[in-house]
């Protein structure tokens, strides 16, 4: 079994180890800015990495999730830059 899976970040095909933390996979693709702050419109990224701060919120398959609590799955569709 191949432990690497393919999925999409903002429409681009990327690969990562299955079940890796999504924030880690995003960082390996060079992406730190994950959501936009509704007041300043500035990018925010993973800060606490344990589900407490909500700065890593983004949209996976149409649902807003904390990326740091989300394991990578094959074919997931990840969208960054949402205003949450």
């Amino acid at each position, binding site marked *: 079994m191949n432990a690497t899976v393919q999925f999409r970040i903002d429409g681009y095909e990327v690969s990562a180890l299955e*079940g890796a933390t999504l924030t880690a996979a995003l960082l390996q693709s060079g992406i730190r800015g994950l959501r936009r702050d509704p007041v300043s419109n500035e990018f925010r990224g993973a800060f606490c990495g344990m*589900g407490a*701060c909500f700065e890593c*919120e983004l949209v996976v398959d149409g649902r*807003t999730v904390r990326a740091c609590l989300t394991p990578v799955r094959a074919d997931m569709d990840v969208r960054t830059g949402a205003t949450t």
Partner: protein
Amino acid sequence: MTSDVVIVGAGPAGLSAATVIAENDRSVVVIDEQPRPGGQYYRQQSAAVIATHGVHRAEGAALIERARRAGVQFRSGVSVWGVDDDRRTLLVSAADGTSIRRHLAPRIVVATGATERALPFPGWQLPAVTTVGYAQHLCAEGVRVGARVLVAGSGPFLLSVACSLVGVGVDVVAVLEEGTPYRPRAAGWKVAGHPQRLREFAAYRARLAAARVPVRSGRRVVSAEETADGLRVVEGPTVGTGRARQHTVDALNVGFGFRPQIDLLRLLGCGTRIDALSGDEVAVVDVDGATDLDGVWAAGEVTGIAGAPSALAEGLVVGAAVLRSLGAPLPEGLAAARRDVSRARAFASTLGRLYPAPRDLAALAAASLGDDALVCRCESVSAGQVRAAQFGGTDLQAVKAATRAGMGLCQGRECAPAVSALCGSPTAAFTVRPPLRPILLAAVAEHAAQVI
């Protein structure tokens, strides 16, 4: 779904309590928000990540396996966001706020652990700034938070994380410690009574020295800003006037110790107190970990920060108390666990005295902030807005109502130390109200339809 006991939190304390209860033939459900059991200290990776990068903290994996064999039922990826009026029914959802359910818990063990204390400085909200804990999680997955990294804040955890970073090949430009804990002083001699911990500390220092990572005491981050070359961080002295230095790095990892995560205990209505040394709010418990609410126990960091060894031992003590309430005989190892708890707490207290008190760190952070610096990340509230909202008084809830600081998605977990320091009430806490985690209105409506 019912069980004899519901434990909230699958970290060292929760795992330890769950295992002893299940091994004595009582049914246990462990609810935890993370995708896999282990909490933060025993955080476990997926099979594919382990196959590539190895097991992180094998003793944690072994404890989880032992719990499973004993029949502990894990409900991972589940958030507790509320408590019903009976104070026995937990309101839970999936971690994304969907699938709302009620979970009747005749006996509850709260082992919700701690979060890292965050303190603001200009630029702390930039995506290249993260906690040290997150940087260490990335190391455990074989991922570098950056090629060049600065580590700053206060506490022994900074050294541990810096070593993890070195271990995955990160160029750690420096570790900045706000206090001066490594100077010889009277309190330092007490550490000699804990030789194993002393060896751990010596190993960290040796590893950093070998990697030529400078550890500079009495230094702190002044500001961080994004530039075309990377994150530009200015460091300066903690007190007085001293030379400023600039670093250009990929990431800045900050940490100021840990705060007990007691929101669920407060929602249950359990008694809390202010810990004298840290100034943090902790659960009031007796020697068995029982809270003042019948049928509710607390174990681990929620009773005061003392680290994983204490949490493991407290889990066993609480597990034994829960078993006694269920008419089961006392498990083995109870006396040793009680000794381990008092020893770990003594060490935590000794260590705490070597580093600056959290309330002093928060007061310094607050006093150093310019009016335009961001304090509340969720609602983008600046230090100036908090200062202007005080109307000559220092009521934290009034400031929250006037500015929205502490009202956002994180429920004030990140900004509380700084906002309370800015208000001059370092031990004041934001009120706790459900939902503790965001839930979808559609999920509430769906649940209501099922109940009616």
